[in-house]
């Protein structure tokens, strides 16, 4: 436990901790860290991992329907990546002391949140294209910023995730362009999907700074290097021109670029709706958790069967008093 009350050298350690971050150094799992830093990081990385694992579901439902070999393999690979990102992120949070079993059970019990965009249905094949392009595009904006943060295991995971996301973005953009240059029906399907996903994408970056409990300490500690509004602006600056380039219209009459303040102006979403959704009342919130709970239950016999063999435990005991020959010359 390291709080001002319980640790006489708290101030000194905090100064060294903050100096290290200011120098651009990373914090490793067994470095000293304030409890608040640990708590905020566990909450944030836990939610990020949940979002990856739940995020696999809307696109996952479309895998059996993918219409060509390339799309079919790519969609399996993309959803697989998201499960892999969940794995790496749960691991990053585990290094802060929270076991994966706990994190998964809290998610399944609705006690730990995940990104609201996955509480929306993927109604058509064009939804899969928009998700892969704009939701993954938003995720990359967020992850690239978080990768400049201070906690080393999270940054190492993000480095790998960002590399894999580069495929997601190109794959999504390729799908969107294919629909945009396709038949009238394909173009309409694409525009219709964009109309449904635009508000969730704006909400993806979280409530505006004036609403969110974003503190200066989180920025100084490298837990959250940029605010929600800053990230949203980076997304809009990059993607609005590209969307318009494809001949699509963005379903927000107020969307315009404010030259003077160098920022995109948009219709403020209904943030009460946002908070209601992340509390579990989105159109597909219950459905997503139900699918994840079913998968978890149906897999229990597999987890328990191989846990029973417990070979790993025997290996650990035998490890220290082992023969002198090296297995890995």
């Amino acid at each position, binding site marked *: 436990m390291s709080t001002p009350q319980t640790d006489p050298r708290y101030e000194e350690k905090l100064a060294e901790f903050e100096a*290290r971050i200011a120098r651009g*150094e*990373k*914090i*490793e799992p067994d*470095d000293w860290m304030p409890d608040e830093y640990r708590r905020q990081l566990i909450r944030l990385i836990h939610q990020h991992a949940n979002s990856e694992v739940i995020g696999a579901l809307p696109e996952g439902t479309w895998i059996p329907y993918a219409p060509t070999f*390339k799309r079919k*393999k*790519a969609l399996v*690979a*993309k959803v697989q*990546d998201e499960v892999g990102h969940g794995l790496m992120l749960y691991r990053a949070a585990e290094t802060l002391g929270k076991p994966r079993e706990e994190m998964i059970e809290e998610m399944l019990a609705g006690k730990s949140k995940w990104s609201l965009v996955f509480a929306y249905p993927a109604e058509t094949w064009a939804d899969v294209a928009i998700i892969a392009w704009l939701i993954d595009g938003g995720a990359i904006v967020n992850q690239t910023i978080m990768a400049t943060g201070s906690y*080393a295991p999270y*940054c*190492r995971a993000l480095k790998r995730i960002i590399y894999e996301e*580069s*495929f997601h*973005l*190109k*794959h999504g*953009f*390729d799908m969107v*362009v294919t629909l*945009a*240059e396709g038949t009238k029906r394909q173009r309409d399907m694409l525009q219709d999907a964009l109309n449904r996903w635009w508000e969730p994408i704006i909400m993806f970056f979280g409530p505006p700074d004036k609403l969110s409990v974003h503190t200066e300490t989180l920025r100084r500690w490298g837990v959250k290097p940029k605010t929600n509004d800053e990230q949203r602006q980076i997304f809009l600056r990059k993607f609005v021109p590209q969307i318009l*380039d*494809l*001949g699509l219209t963005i379903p927000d009459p107020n969307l315009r670029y404010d030259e003077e303040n160098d920022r995109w102006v948009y219709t403020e979403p209904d943030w009460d709706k946002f908070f209601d959704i992340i509390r579990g009342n989105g159109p597909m919130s219950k459905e997503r958790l139900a699918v994840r709970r079913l998968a978890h239950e149906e897999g229990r016999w597999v987890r328990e069967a191989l846990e029973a063999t417990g070979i790993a435990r025997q*290996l*650990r005991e*035998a*490890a*220290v*008093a*082992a*023969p*002198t*020959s*090296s*297995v*890995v010359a």
Partner: protein
Amino acid sequence: KADTEWILFEVFVREKRGEHPVHVGALHAPDPEMAIVLAKEQYLRRGDAVQLWVVPSACITATPIEEADIFMHTTDKSYREAYGYRVAERVRHLRGEEKHG
């Protein structure tokens, strides 16, 4: 105490915070604590590392080096790489078309 059985440890070094540990070699020691001391003498002295890992070699399971072909991909995997997608040219064409599309 002749009965102290010296076992082989593999040593890994994390050079800087933020980086992954890298295997640097192996050494004999009676137990992990001693292995750390010996490894420190070899690797930490010149300040070229922030952390050392030692692991009994017998604790490591490795794929046989002669079966490296199990990691080979013999059918196309470009569909799951960014370089598997050529889009820029089509967007320019689309924009061109878009004026009278």
